């Protein structure tokens, strides 16, 4: 039996010290979490002291405390946003009723499933990023990777807290299982497809944090509307941390583009081979990575028509993105939404009941947000005087889930036959050769202020520290 002082080791605002049952449950789980971290967490990093942002409370002063910490000693706190005792359910069939502080029996299974699915993605990304520390393009980037890793770890804690606190014995079992599945494991993989894909290199990592962590933002935002108040408050707080992950992706790709543009201008060329020879990543490769990560990520929103989505919404478990800001009736009965399907070799839109199309609604919100960021990437090229622009592929491109699964489609949205797909695949998605080339650039650079040749330095350091700050102290 461990003798951990939880209120100190695990900063929390859930009265952990006074909840004996919960404390005992977490005492059982905690050593397994540390074992998991040691086994599949960031490789070779045990003795590094990393300049991390740690949350010790949820107020502005408390949730962004910076300092050098060994990742194993990071304080994986449990935080819920401050509650409002009078909060009302603001959508679905229970609209106007008081938000639930406990899990209603009839929604127990669905809520548990939602929480487990969300929880499963958190350790998965740590596992997917496990080897990246060995090829970091700079000490600054290494630090950002580790920051993301510890926060994904904390988000796992957040979901485990909900399972332990509100779901009794099966909650504890589900919490155990979160540590037993492993990303990419043939026998016991992570629940969602994208979380079993490899993150082989840093360009993939930046695309992943840009697109896939943005999926996290939209899922968390939808859960932050939940009628189950503890879930709403937990995910609200997680959202503030998720922002950093998207930042790493957005600024990471921007910096890759800035470097590529610089090389193109210096050499006065747009020939991908010359760009590659100069040690930068050509724009075509970047576009192909984008196509891949974008299409894999939009699959994460699920089938375009789903009765589960309708049930989750109507029963108040999961709202829409920014539900509170929408002007409709928040019940959505009798309304329709347009989804895509292929008919006679053509893409057509059809109206389906809105409630069944809520995955598509969330996907479309995500798409709008992603596209705006791609516009910001294009500004980098525009400023450098490079005429090429990045674009997101068509929504139906390379989909594996829902009505569009398996349909062969060009990035512009033209249905193509197998032959054309086979011929063009490597133009549209990263080829083995692209991966090999990007991998060849991945050498480790960890001297303060130095950067690998394929990426520009960031505009500013973390927490107003200089770019050449010692973000990681190697033990």
């Amino acid at each position, binding site marked *: 039996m461990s003798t951990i002082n939880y209120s100190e080791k695990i900063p929390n605002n859930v009265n952990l010290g006074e909840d004996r049952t919960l404390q005992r449950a977490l005492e059982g789980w905690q050593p397994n979490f540390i074992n998991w971290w040691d086994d599949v967490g960031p490789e070779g990093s045990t003795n590094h002291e990393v300049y991390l942002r740690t949350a010790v409370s949820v107020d502005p002063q*408390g949730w962004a405390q910076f300092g050098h910490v060994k990742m194993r000693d990071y304080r994986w706190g449990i935080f819920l946003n*401050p509650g409002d005792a009078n909060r009302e359910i603001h959508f679905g069939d229970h609209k106007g009723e008081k938000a639930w502080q406990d899990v209603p029996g009839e929604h127990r299974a669905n809520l548990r499933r939602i929480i487990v699915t969300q929880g499963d993605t958190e350790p998965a990304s740590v596992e997917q990023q496990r080897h990246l520390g060995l090829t970091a393009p700079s000490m600054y980037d290494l630090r950002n990777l580790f920051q993301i890793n510890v926060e994904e770890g904390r988000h796992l804690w957040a979901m485990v807290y909900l399972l332990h606190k509100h779901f009794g014995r099966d909650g504890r079992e589900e919490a155990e299982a979160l540590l037993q599945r492993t990303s990419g494991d043939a026998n016991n993989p992570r629940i969602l497809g994208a979380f079993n894909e490899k993150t082989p290199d840093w360009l993939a990592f930046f695309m992943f944090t840009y697109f896939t962590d943005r999926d996290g933002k939209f899922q968390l935002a939808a859960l932050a509307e939940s009628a189950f108040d503890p879930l709403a408050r937990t995910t609200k707080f997680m959202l503030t941390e998720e922002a950093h992950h998207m*930042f790493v992706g957005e*600024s990471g790709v921007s910096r890759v583009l800035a470097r590529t543009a610089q090389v193109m201008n210096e050499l006065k060329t747009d020939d991908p081979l010359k760009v590659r020879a100069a040690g930068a990543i050509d724009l075509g490769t970047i576009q192909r990575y984008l196509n891949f990560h974008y299409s894999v990520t939009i699959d994460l929103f699920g089938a375009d028509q789903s009765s589960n989505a309708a049930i989750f919404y109507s029963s108040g478990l999961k709202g829409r993105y920014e539900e509170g800001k929408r002007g409709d009736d928040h019940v959505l009965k009798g309304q329709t939404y347009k989804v895509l399907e292929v008919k006679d070799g053509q893409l057509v839109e059809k109206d389906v009941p809105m409630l069944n199309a809520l995955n598509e609604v969330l996907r479309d919100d995500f798409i709008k947000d992603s596209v705006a960021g791609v516009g*910001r990437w294009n*500004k980098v090229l525009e400023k450098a005087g490079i005429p090429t622009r990045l674009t997101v592929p068509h929504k139906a491109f390379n989909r594996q889930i829902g009505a569009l699964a398996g349909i062969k489609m060009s990035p512009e949205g033209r249905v193509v036959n197998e032959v054309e797909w086979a011929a063009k695949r490597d133009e549209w998605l990263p080829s083995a050769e692209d991966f090999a080339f990007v991998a060849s650039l991945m050498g480790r650079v960890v001297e303060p202020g130095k950067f690998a040749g394929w990426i520009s330095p960031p505009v500013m350091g973390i*927490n*107003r520290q200089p770019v050449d700050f010692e973000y990681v102290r190697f033990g």
Partner: protein
Amino acid sequence: MDMAVEAGVIKQHLIDPEICIRCNTCEATCPVNAITHDDNNYVVRADICNGCMACISPCPTGSIDNWRTMPLVRAYSIEEQFTWESLPAELSTEELEAAGVSAEAAGDAAAAVPAQTQAQAQAAVESVEPVFNSAQYGATVPPWSAAHAYTNLFAPKAPTTATVVGNFNCTEAGFDSETHHIVLDFGVVPFPVLEGQSIGIIAPGVDAIGKRHHARQYSVASPRNGERPGYNNVSLTVKRVTEDHQGDPVRGVCSNYVCDLKVGDTVQVVGPFGTSFLMPNHPRSHIVMICTGTGSAPMRAMTEWRRRLRKSGKFEGGKLMLFFGARTQQELPYFGPLQSLPKDFIDINLAFSRTPGQPKRYVQDLMRERAADLAALLKDGASHFYVCGLKSMEEGVVLALRDVATEAGLDWDTVGAALKREGRLHLETY
């Protein structure tokens, strides 16, 4: 201390649209709802942002930490900011001068920006003239012996309700700067506060563009166990705002609402706020309080808490010293009660800048007169300094402290840095 604030120049808080990733963290964090967005940009409302810096470290990109010296009348509107693709350049000295802003005033605006952004502020005004940045000496940590403060229990979106149980005019009636002492009761709702913290009040109704009023902050004037000990209440010291910083007549939205409240009325409250402007609690700690006007509120809270403790036999060793400025004696809130405090309990120094027939005296003049005592306190690691009141007083007060230190043979850079690091110099000016 002159109550009128000089020059219509502000340090405007802006977000760099080129770096911002539109993650919403700042909007979710800002305690007074100063941040908003459209599909294009995240922007800060110049008239609401009070520079509290709560949004700075949570922002993952650093894009939030941008400040521009601007003539108030030319402050960028949010509509303008929504259209930006990049930040506009800092106005040149000539442009500022053309708008009637002197180099000195631009410097003042820079000094008003809290310590964390001093580097940027400094860089921004370097072309104008080197300035003494008083704000850089202000601590962001509390004294080591301070009690733990609760903050942000009630966010702007979920305020709590308090009932007015007292409202007294505590300046002589008939003076422009009427100041009220308001007591609010929270009933059974937990609202723990410490001396030095502030709370926010949301006035009812909407502003000119139809949005709910943002919360105005007020320092707590009562000690931790309540204005009336053992009851769940706090008191505030609120000055009716009847003219703006330029001296033009204006009816301040929230201060007038609060001053006109009747016993039994209810108000919407957010907060509490503040984690560093907190009093030391160890028995040998000294407290030096320097304030003007309603800046006396936290000083009253601290004094009253010490007075209650003293009655119970604690704090024999710790000294209390107060420097308090107003235009006239009549405008000094709490003047009567102050006079009846025993001399061996608190060393009171009052400065009046507008007493007819008398030379103007400001708090910093009094501080220089008491240099010998202040120097002794500056040498003592148990001394804590608190400055609260109008922005325009801050620089003069910190300069006076510097001069006192220097004349006593102390190295101000060392002393000032220690005061900051150890949470012993606190600045709260508005």
